[in-house]
């Protein structure tokens, strides 16, 4: 047999997966090829290192911790309900995010057309939008975290309604707070 074939068989030999005829060919090649014999000794050392490896003990309270998480985790129905509410809430937020700045942009476009400082106005508007987007993203993250970790469906619903209301009010204030500067 050739050396490449011998090397392909080394792993099978370690696992006792060679047939009788293959065993004979494997041993015969060891006798005539010192390079492969050296390689085989290295592989045997690896096999010896990993033979009968020790098992480590898990923490004593592992099973107890698992059962605590099972007993206090969210039930499947609550999770799906929360996800449905999150989708509705996200749709409302996206709608608000699109409609309110759109109105602002229409006013901005008119102002920009009449104002000599077009670049400054555009930069200001972009900065304003980025600020709004960053705060909305953070709010959505907090909302999602709260919904996922809520202990019950009712708490999730209340949390969502309060969050949507607060964000809508904030958006209104944030957008129209800037509007007088843009109109100016």
């Amino acid at each position: 047999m050739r050396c490449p074939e011998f090397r392909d068989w080394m792993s099978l030999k370690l696992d006792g997966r060679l047939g009788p005829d293959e065993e004979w060919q494997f041993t015969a090649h060891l006798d005539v090829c010192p390079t492969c014999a050296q390689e085989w000794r290295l592989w045997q050392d690896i096999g010896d290192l990993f033979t009968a490896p020790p098992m480590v003990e898990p923490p004593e309270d592992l099973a107890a911790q698992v059962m605590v998480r099972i007993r206090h985790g969210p039930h499947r129905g609550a999770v799906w309900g929360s996800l449905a509410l999150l989708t509705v809430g996200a749709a409302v937020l996206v709608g608000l995010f699109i409609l309110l700045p759109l109105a602002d942009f229409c006013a901005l476009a008119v102002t920009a057309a009449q104002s000599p400082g077009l670049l400054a106005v555009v930069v200001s508007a972009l900065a304003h939008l980025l600020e709004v987007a960053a705060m909305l993203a953070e709010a959505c993250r907090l909302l999602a975290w709260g919904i996922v970790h809520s202990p019950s469906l009712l708490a999730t619903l209340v949390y969502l309604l309060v969050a949507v209301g607060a964000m809508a009010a904030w958006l209104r204030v944030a957008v129209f707070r800037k509007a007088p500067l843009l109109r100016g």
Partner: protein
Amino acid sequence: MEEERALIRKALAGDQEAFEGLVRAYQVPVYNLAYRMLGTPAEAEEAAQETFLRVYRRLQTYDVEQRLSSWVLAIASHYCVDRLRRRRGVWLSVDELPEAAVAGPVREAPEPRFLEREKQQEMQEMLACLPEGYRLAIVLRYWYDLSYEEMAEVTQTTVSAVKSRLHRAREMLAEQMTRSQARPASGRLERRLAGNALP
């Protein structure tokens, strides 16, 4: 086996105590798989807990014709491989492997404790240098003594893929061993032995 099936039936019927019995029956193999794959006791504990949570949530989908051990180890394996892939690019240097990673109590340790710890450390260091798929193959082969067919069942691949991964993993381990033998003073064991040598 019959006792295990009885526990499964009770757990499927909603008996949480029965499920706790299954957790206690499999916590050692699951924890050890996670520890050998992830490298630290803290991550292994988190992974073991998450594995059993997934087992609990998916218990209704368990096929009673399949070995429970293969099914549970499959869930643990997938979780550990996913976890390793997510932290790919944040390689732990072998020097950063904490000593505490091999400080846990060892079962059935007839060898002197020092040599046992050194052997564990060397094994863990070599495992840490393998990609996750190859590492899993070595762990399943040596810690669980699974056949190629059983490993294919756990990893949900083919026997050919299992053979290939084992072969490639051993090649990489051989390269590591060759490199460490070429640097006799740089290995941890060799440094300690040199330090302890009589004048």
